[in-house]
């Protein structure tokens, strides 16, 4: 919303310095995005008439214009297509200055001397129009300063109005707020419209859907179409609208000034000289002014002529059939109040927004409909030779009552932390047009109908806060008295997991949770329970991840593409699975994924080595240690996405909680990644549900350990981890440690067999183990392993 200060001053003095006005608007919640003072920097730009337009000898797109600026003539080079002999335009001679401090000089353009330039609207700081030279009123005195002619000695506030304040989307609304803040008078003069009894409002209005159109008012006027006067055009331009014709300009002017969208129909083109407001038929079509044919539903409201032919989509956009043109002599002016949600729904469904729809959907003043039509009539009379029919046809079938709101002064103070007297509350509200009576906790406020946002007591409390100013509200700190601030166990554990990964040398990534279905499938992530986006912008981001790893691998690829080969990343985040049964929301779980690529430096004592699966296992161990899960093992099994011989399921407390291994070449090839890349992914929610280490103190034994070494020949398929577990179980509490210290393969051992050598350390808490006890433990260990596996003790 662009509000020129000169226009605001039609209604209130607003004579404070600009900085003060800006501060006031900001505090009031009418946020000032920009303050434009286009005239402030313009010097010496004058009104000139183009006498002749000649081709440029050396450039097709440029022309030469001879201009008369009152007390002299000169020639300029001009690239705009819209100049013609006789046109009056702003002329900036050499020495003149434009916004931004740009000073013009006499210079050659493609070999021809240009003595300055003709200006577009944008070059004068008047909005964005740069299509052509700004055409000035033909009656302007040649040589006059354009600042005066265009009214540029003005301040334009570009305001960001929040959606709850439709009343502030117009100049009058901004003026009202400023007047209240500055404690200055505020008046909106009543329209003084001379009427002409020879013009009859002989039109009919039938509202068939009063729920969607509580009020529809029609006025009739005979008009002479043409251009609107310079003052009106200037205001429209400053407010960001393009002048079109006097009739259309008047409707836009009232829209900007009063927040009442109006529509002028060419009455001669309305079949049956009347209006029917009805819902659209299913599948009914109409072409809007922007040339688009739109398919409608019964939820959409149509403005039709008396013959029921659609003329406009109510409150959103008109059609071409009854559009006002140069040939128009009589108009029917629509001033209506449409139900907000209906306009919002239609506008959203058709993806069609207009100045009009954005106001109707926020809520205009139903009581202003007639007054604002009067204002338009007054202006038609002034600028379009309007002869105005005295009567209006006003179908106000569902009158909107002003909201009566009870307001308790104590409630105001309790919410704001203030100690305002009831009189202060009343004084805060009255200048906003809120009529307050009563006292103490029995204030009764009548909310003006232009403030649809004021319905409840709290709405008035906010108005009081806004008026007294947030700066005057105190600063206290609320502290809970019934709880202690703390992380939950799960939150603390997730921090530990992340810290363990960081400690293991991995950096945390945050990848997009929206991925390509193919990435998930290749990586072996569950695709049958994937949740699809309904309106994705890209196919690569069309489903929610069921696994973090594919995203992490993309991050590896991103780094590789930048010449960064050694990448160790982890991510801790949610994955999403389509819900089971009748649950609506997905099954969201925390996962941890980690990946390592490139090489690990062992220099200078050893050579660098590429990462291998044991690097991933180390990360896993670090994580499990951090959350004190001791009951876990790896179960070697093949999984899609992983190297079949180099991957394992992570089993904690008997439940599979994740996978660890080397990424399969098929996955890497799809990302153009060279291997090896190793990774793990763990369902953290499951992992954290596993039993944790018993933290009861066990005194370290002061007695000496006994160590035995045992080597077993077993089939290849037997996992070393499993044998270690068997050895640990066989020795019970006396086992302190089991370490695999050698793996050996040889023809002597037989095909597909290997030797696993373990060192087992025993120690008792209360005594030194005797030789006999150790021998017994050894026998038990051997028996356990040979009993459990196809194993023999190696001599």
């Amino acid at each position, binding site marked *: 919303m662009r509000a020129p200060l000169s226009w605001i001053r039609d209604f209130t003095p607003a004579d404070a310095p600009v900085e003060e006005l800006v501060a006031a608007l900001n505090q009031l919640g009418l946020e000032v995005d920009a303050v434009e003072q286009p005239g402030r920097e313009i010097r010496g730009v004058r009104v000139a008439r183009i006498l002749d337009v000649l081709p440029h000898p050396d450039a097709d797109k440029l022309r030469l214009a001879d201009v008369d600026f009152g007390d002299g003539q000169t020639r300029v080079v001009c690239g705009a297509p819209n100049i013609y002999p006789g046109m009056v335009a702003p002329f900036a001679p050499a020495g003149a200055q434009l916004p931004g401090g740009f000073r013009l000089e006499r210079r050659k353009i493609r070999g021809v001397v240009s003595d300055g330039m003709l200006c577009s609207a944008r070059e004068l700081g008047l909005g964005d129009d740069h299509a052509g030279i700004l055409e000035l009123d033909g009656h302007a005195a040649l040589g006059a300063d354009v600042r005066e002619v265009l009214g540029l000695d003005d301040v334009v506030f570009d305001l960001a109005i929040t959606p709850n304040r439709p009343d502030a989307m117009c100049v009058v609304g901004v003026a009202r707020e400023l007047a209240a803040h500055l404690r200055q008078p505020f008046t909106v003069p009543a329209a003084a419209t001379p009427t002409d009894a020879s013009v009859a409002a002989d039109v009919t209005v039938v509202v068939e859907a009063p729920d969607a159109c509580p009020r529809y008012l029609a006025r009739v006027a005979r008009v002479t179409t043409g251009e609107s006067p310079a003052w009106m055009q200037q205001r429209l331009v400053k407010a960001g609208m393009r002048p079109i014709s006097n009739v259309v300009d008047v409707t836009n002017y009232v829209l900007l000034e009063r927040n009442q969208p109006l529509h002028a129909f060419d009455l001669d083109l309305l079949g049956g000289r009347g209006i029917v407001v009805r819902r659209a038929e299913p599948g009914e079509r109409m072409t809007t002014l922007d040339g688009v044919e739109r398919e409608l539903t019964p939820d959409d409201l149509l403005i039709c002529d008396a013959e029921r032919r659609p003329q406009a989509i109510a409150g959103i956009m008109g059609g071409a059939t009854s559009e006002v043109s140069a040939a128009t002599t009589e108009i029917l002016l629509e001033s209506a109040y449409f139900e907000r949600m209906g306009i919002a729904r239609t506008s959203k469904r058709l993806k069609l927004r207009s100045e009009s729809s954005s106001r109707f959907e926020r809520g205009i003043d139903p009581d202003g409909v007639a007054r604002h039509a009067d204002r338009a009539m007054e202006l038609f009379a002034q600028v379009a030779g309007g002869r105005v029919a005295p009567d209006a046809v006003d179908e106000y079938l569902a009158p909107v009552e002003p909201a009566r709101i009870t307001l308790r002064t104590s409630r105001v103070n309790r919410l704001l932390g203030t100690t305002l007297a009831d009189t202060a509350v009343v004084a805060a509200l009255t200048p906003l047009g809120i009529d307050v009576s009563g006292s103490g906790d029995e204030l009764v406020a009548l909310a003006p109908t232009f403030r649809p946002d004021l319905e409840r007591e709290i709405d008035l409390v906010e108005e009081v806060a806004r008026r007294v100013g947030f700066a005057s509200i105190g600063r206290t700190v609320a502290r809970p008295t019934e709880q202690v601030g703390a992380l939950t166990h799960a939150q603390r554990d997730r921090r530990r997991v992340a810290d363990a990964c960081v400690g293991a040398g991995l950096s945390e990534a945050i990848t997009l949770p929206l991925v390509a279905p193919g990435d998930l499938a290749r990586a072996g992530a569950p695709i049958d329970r994937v949740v699809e986006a309904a309106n*994705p912008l890209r196919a690569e981001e069309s489903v929610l991840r069921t696994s973090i790893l594919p995203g992490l691998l993309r991050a590896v690829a991103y780094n590789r593409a930048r010449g960064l080969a050694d990448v160790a990343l982890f991510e801790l985040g949610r994955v999403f699975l389509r819900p089971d049964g009748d649950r609506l929301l997905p099954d969201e779980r925390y996962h941890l994924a980690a990946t390592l690529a490139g090489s690990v430096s062992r220099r200078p004592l050893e050579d660098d080595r590429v990462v291998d699966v044991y690097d991933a296992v180390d990360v896993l161990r670090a994580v499990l240690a951090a959350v004190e899960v001791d009951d876990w093992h790896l179960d070697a099994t093949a999984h899609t996405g992983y190297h079949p011989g180099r991957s394992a399921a992570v089993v904690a407390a008997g439940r599979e909680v994740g996978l660890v291994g080397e990424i399969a070449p098929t996955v890497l090839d799809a990302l153009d990644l060279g291997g090896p890349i190793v990774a793990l992914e763990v369902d953290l929610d499951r992992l954290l549900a596993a039993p944790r280490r018993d933290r009861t103190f066990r005194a370290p034994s002061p007695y000496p350990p006994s160590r035995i070494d045992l080597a077993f020949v077993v089939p290849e398929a037997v996992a070393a981890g499993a044998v270690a577990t068997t050895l640990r179980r066989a020795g019970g509490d006396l086992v302190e440690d089991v370490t695999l210290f050698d793996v050996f393969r040889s023809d002597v051992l037989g095909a597909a067999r290997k030797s696993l050598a373990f060192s087992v350390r025993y120690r008792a808490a209360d005594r030194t183990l005797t030789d006999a006890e150790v021998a017994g433990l050894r026998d038990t260990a051997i028996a356990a392993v040979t009993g459990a596996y196809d194993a023999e003790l190696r001599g």
Partner: protein
Amino acid sequence: MSALVRLDDLRTLLDTALAEARGSVPAAASTTELDALERELLGRRSPAGQANEAIKNLEPAERPQAGQAVGAYRAAVAELVASRRDELAAAEAAAAADRDRLDLTAGSHGRARGHLHLVTQVQRELEDIFVGLGYRIAEGPEVEDDWHNFEALNIPPAHPARSMQDTLYVKLGGDEQVMLRTHTSPVQIRTMETHEPPIYVVAPGRTYRNETLDARHSPVFHQIECLAVDRDITLADLFGTIETFVRRLFDDETIRTRFRSDFFPYTEPSAELAVSCIFCHGEGCRVCSHTGWIELGGCGMVDPNVFEAVGYDPEVWQGFAFGFGLERIAMIRYGIDEIRTFFDDDVRFLAQY
């Protein structure tokens, strides 16, 4: 030997031997050589040994003097040897150390410590500040239903506030019924639905917009939401809590807060929250676009409609809520210009923090 019968001769023998030892012992080139020399100077056949043998042939009156002379000789030689032995041991240790020398600047095994993502660091920092103020950390799903993301937050269908959000919906339930949450505010609703007041929580987390990742836009970003509900929470509590918290966050007691009227469907009164620029302290600089203020987020008193949606009596309970973006905090603090920096996962960026 038996010829040696005079005390003077014996002394001369020892003196001469000692004088030689003063030359030969410090010159011994190795401990082996030193061991041999020690035997030569102190062994049975050494001058000391000879002198001992000869003592019995002296006059009885001279014998104690002779004994002392031998003792003095032995002590002097032993000291020479010990001293040389220390020197040789030190030299040999130094030589061994030199042989075992490693260039410590040549490398290291394994990886250095990794890095938490900058967003996580900021998030933890904020969480810890609020835990210090007595708050708990609440969580909720990232995929939300219409009730929690919009409706219960006083954003009914077709409400203009929905047009402010580019919502990414998913194919679950009915049309536009389930979406990736557009803000962390639904956690407010879930917390109040499952807990009796009073409530003091913060809810950090990922939020989503239907946008493509570029310099200014990201489909995913992070917010933190604060909710306090108690019997007498006031707007002054909201402003004071925010001021306390931002001063802690930026570790600067001189930071000022500014609140301007704003609109959010789920709070009333609502305000936009800005802090005095942490770089120029309000003087105006590039970071604050020469305004002296940095906008951080939005805040307000919980709207009674929200309380009614979760079954709290708005006549009994009052509350405030505020929220802002974690990336924004990091961008301001560290001068990061582009939001995509956070989600490219370039290891050079990750390793910088």
